[in-house]
């Protein structure tokens, strides 16, 4: 799956958990999910669980530790799918 295709599927998942004062236009591939987009750690877990369902992959604890940005998420998903 291409980076763009993953991003297109990932964006609506992340959007669900954005705080009200963050609009989807603010999201970019480099956005830091917790620091810039203000997603709390519990919602970060929700995003992972939704990603697992959407892409039929399973995240490990180490993946969670390496997950900071949208790009990190895409990288981990790509690695799981290959």
């Amino acid at each position, binding site marked *: 799956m291409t980076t763009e295709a993953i991003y297109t599927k990932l964006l609506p998942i992340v959007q669900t958990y954005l705080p009200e004062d963050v609009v989807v236009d603010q999201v970019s591939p480099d956005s830091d999910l917790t620091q810039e987009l203000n997603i709390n750690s519990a919602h970060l877990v929700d995003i992972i*669980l939704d990603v697992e369902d959407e892409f039929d992959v399973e995240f490990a604890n180490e993946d*969670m530790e390496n997950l900071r940005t949208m790009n990190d998420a895409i990288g981990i998903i790509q690695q799981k799918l290959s």
Partner: protein
Amino acid sequence: MDQWNRIKSRWRGKSSVMDGFKDILALLPYTGPFLFVDNLESISENRVEGSYRFREDEFFYKGHFKGNPVTPGVILTECMAQIGVVCLGIYLLSEKASEEMQIALSHNEVDFYKAVYPGETVRVFSEKEYFRFNKLKCKVKMLNEKGEVVCKGSISGMIVPQAI
């Protein structure tokens, strides 16, 4: 680690279940006047049952309400969270649980049905939905002594073994 092997064996050992409960209660990061757990009746990988008696002299009755003491909904929610999420979380962390752990409520959605008055004992039943990446999500309900549902809902918290 010795301490933890001891606690773990207590939790798993059928002959000393009550001691295992005591160890879990000892690790709760609360104290009076904000500890709302008296006893654990049962605990396993997927569920926990515990109880608490609201003392007549709890601090909040003085103000909630004026001249008409009723247990606040936030306190009922807290009681459900302490028994249903934190006690279960400590059990699930097993040997990784310690006084270093960090806990935080992340979400709750609770409906209330009955009032709880001073002196009443409530029982809390909680069922794990999932525990992943330090997030524990549970379906929780509270019953009064008559067996009526006082409140029920969904509560999630983050339980991190040590400060990060």
